């Protein structure tokens, strides 16, 4: 390894160590696992290792939003409909009690079997879904409920009706609503955080990622098809933009990593939920002390600063 590369890795490790919040680990006392995680980071991941993450993020046995709702939320009332044209079951919304407080929850929902997958459009919301989410965010604002957003979407839906119904504008406005809220918002990518479909519900005070989740501007396949002119080069694309949680943390795109059970969340839904619950609770507790206008100010300042080029330039 060249000394330059080694330097970059050390820098990366120190950044990681400085991170304020590393998922629920700190809080659930699993310091040993944290140490292991950090050690793994010191080795630059190979293309194969990165691709494993992509496959884990897409694993069909991974817990989905409603699996977590079932395990973490009491008195759940699912809220349906955009009050305009439809109820989009690809994006689930509701209110319930999380560790003693009423929260509003928003989450992409994939399906378990073929029929449900079709009904839920593989978790890819239509504009109607984003509109439902905005409605529920505004309800949360009215009643000062914190918001939990679970992100798990391959990408915005490439369909005719989705375009006709204003997908671009809906994604923009959903972000705009989130940037205006004066309640705590915690988002966690629990599988695939794909493109505009993901960011539509991820403009949060704290953005977490599960250990094996991915967060991408475009799917590796899509990127490969455009830049390599061959969708088969997906592994090269993934290796080039590194959609894994550790890299997103290094880049300052996320605020913490939520650990998963050994081998991945798909192997133990209960344990995955326990770990996610601990991280969400810690994040909410940190935010709940802040006044609403301060939350909003900090949230906007944070996204203003991510990947800033102010200093890099000129």
């Amino acid at each position, binding site marked *: 390894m060249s000394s330059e590369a080694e330097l970059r890795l050390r820098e990366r490790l120190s950044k990681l160590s400085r991170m304020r919040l590393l998922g629920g680990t700190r809080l659930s006392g699993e310091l040993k696992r944290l140490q292991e995680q950090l050690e793994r980071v010191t080795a630059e991941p190979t293309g194969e290792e990165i691709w494993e993450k992509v496959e884990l993020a*897409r694993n069909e046995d991974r817990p989905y939003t409603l699996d977590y709702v079932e395990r973490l939320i009491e008195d759940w009332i699912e809220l349906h409909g955009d009050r305009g044209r439809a109820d989009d079951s690809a994006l689930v919304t509701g209110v319930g009690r999380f560790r003693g407080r009423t929260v509003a929850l928003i989450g992409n929902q994939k399906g378990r079997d073929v029929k449900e*997958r079709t009904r839920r459009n*593989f978790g890819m919301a239509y504009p109607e879904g984003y509109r439902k989410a905005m409605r529920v965010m505004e309800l949360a604002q009215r009643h000062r409920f914190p918001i939990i957003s679970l992100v798990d979407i*391959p*990408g*915005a*839906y*490439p369909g*005719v009706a*989705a*375009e006709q*119904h*204003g*997908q*671009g*504008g809906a*994604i*923009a*406005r959903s*972000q*705009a609503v989130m*940037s205006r809220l004066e309640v705590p918002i915690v988002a966690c990518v629990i599988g695939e955080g*794909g*493109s*505009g*479909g993901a*960011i*539509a519900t991820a*403009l949060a005070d704290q953005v977490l990622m599960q250990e094996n989740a991915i*967060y*991408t*501007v*475009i*799917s590796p*396949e*899509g*990127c490969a*098809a*455009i*830049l390599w*002119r061959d*969708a088969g080069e997906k592994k090269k694309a993934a290796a*080039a*933009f*590194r*959609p894994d949680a550790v*890299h*997103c943390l290094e*880049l300052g*795109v996320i605020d913490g990593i939520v650990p998963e059970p050994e081998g991945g969340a798909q192997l133990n839904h209960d344990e995955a939920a326990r770990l996610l619950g601990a991280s969400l609770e810690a994040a909410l507790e940190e935010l709940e002390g802040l006044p609403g206008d301060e939350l909003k100010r900090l*949230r*906007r300042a944070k*996204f*203003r600063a*991510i*990947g*800033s*080029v*102010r200093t890099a*330039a000129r």
Partner: protein
Amino acid sequence: MAKIDVSIEHKHPPEPDDGKPHPNTCPKCGSHYRDDELDAHLRVCLHCGHHFPVRAPARIRQLADPGSFVEEAADLRSDDPLDFFDLRPYVERLAEAEVSTGLGEAMVIGRATIGGRSCQLAVMDFAFMGGSMGRVVGEKFALACEGAADQGVPLVSITASGGARMQEGILSLMQLPKTVCAVEELQDAGSAMLSVMSHPTTAGVLASFASLGDVIVAEPGALMSFTGPRVVQQTTREKLPEDFGLAESNYRFGHLDAIVPRPELKDFVAKFLRLFGHVE
């Protein structure tokens, strides 16, 4: 199954092709123009009204009162946060784009007057890497919002973009919330925003600031879809409507306040500034 999300495309202008038509040949009616001829008509085909692409500097000349434009943040340049390398290194693509366009990035910002009214301009240029939005475009747009808010003037945004700049990976996606927050700050400061979408305004730019204008208009024939027609067709295997994703279709579906032909654009912007120019 649609695991493949290729929702961001049209990021690049077509590859050079020896058999390609001359850029001043109208793709709709085949009329051919000299550069000066086309420029004199705002790059609109005299025969069929087709709107040719307009480069950012030309667009500013078309709109701003003569001599009024003062560019800002012109020296901002992208670095390469991911050491990104596809078929070619990102830094090479950036350098090439700068040489071929004479611009530092895909957006030009600055102050101007239009019809005698002050405003802030943010104008995109598709010729610079398909008008893709990386960190510098996001930063410039945010600076434009802040400049408009500071001066208490409206922001006029003119977009032409294939979406987020893939070579900056997840950081390019972060330009969506960044520009959205910038618009919200602008509006909280009491300034208005006019969004003018020119061909094409797609993906990440459509799904962020371009859709947040107080008034939103487009040029005739501009493609305004989150996902491009080719990918939609490949994924859904449906026959697409003839005007899929075009300004005309977006207008019909309620996403646009108006379609403004380029010869009327300056007057329209001036009118917008007269109405929205006052900040309390």
